[in-house]
């Protein structure tokens, strides 16, 4: 579950689509997910595998079925590491600018 794998997994529209489907309704089988995509079963399996390797999808066995669950924690970690950091500076810079302009006015 390193950042590279998460970014790579997210850098594909089909995989983002799969995450959105799971966000709407979690714990789905391959067959259910496949029925919503114009793609072969093998293709969907391959994409799910990349999402599982990145930790974004967690498979769980329930009875005879394998269900796929969305795990949002890696996205949160990316957010904490890569987004908070930069947006905070932007906001701080704007606040400083406002302060300076108001001081000189």
């Amino acid at each position, binding site marked *: 579950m390193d950042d590279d794998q998460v970014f790579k997994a997210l850098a594909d529209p089909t995989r983002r689509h799969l995450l959105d489907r799971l966000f709407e309704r979690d*714990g789905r089988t391959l067959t259910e997910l496949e029925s919503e995509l114009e793609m072969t079963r093998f293709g969907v399996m391959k994409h799910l595998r990349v999402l599982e390797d990145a930790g974004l999808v967690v498979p*769980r066995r329930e009875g005879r079925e394998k269900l796929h669950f969305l795990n949002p924690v890696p996205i*949160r970690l990316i957010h904490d590491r890569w987004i908070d950091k930069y947006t905070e500076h932007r906001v701080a810079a704007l606040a400083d600018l406002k302060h300076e302009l108001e001081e000189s006015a």
Partner: protein
Amino acid sequence: MSTITAQTTQVYQVFIKASPEEIWEAITTPEFTHKYFFGSHVTVTPERFTGLDGEGNDLVLGGVSEYEPPHRLVHEWRSLYDPEAASEAASRVSWEIEDKDGFCLVTVTHDRLEDSPKTAENVAGGWTFVLSGLKTLLETGKPLTG
């Protein structure tokens, strides 16, 4: 998330660079939990899971059904922190801590939420925050800010 019905089984997972014993301690002792678990002081015994706020008011309570330090903990969850969710049926939280070459994979499964829609809705964002905070605390020694 408000337009979507919250899920009745939710699964959260994170890798943490720490030993299973350190992780177990961090999830079962109040000195640690108040730094990442929305300020709650959690105490876990083989019988009960108790989460209190700083003044000793109940936030989360539930019986413990599996207590196997440092790898497995299963307990009930009643959301007493929210007046609307407090009257809902108890749901279930399972913690699994697995060794993986110097890391531990921590999995939280919150299920049996069928009769607890308010709880399902308000824990949906919460667990993500708790697990990322737990990871940050154990790996850097600092609570997650912001």
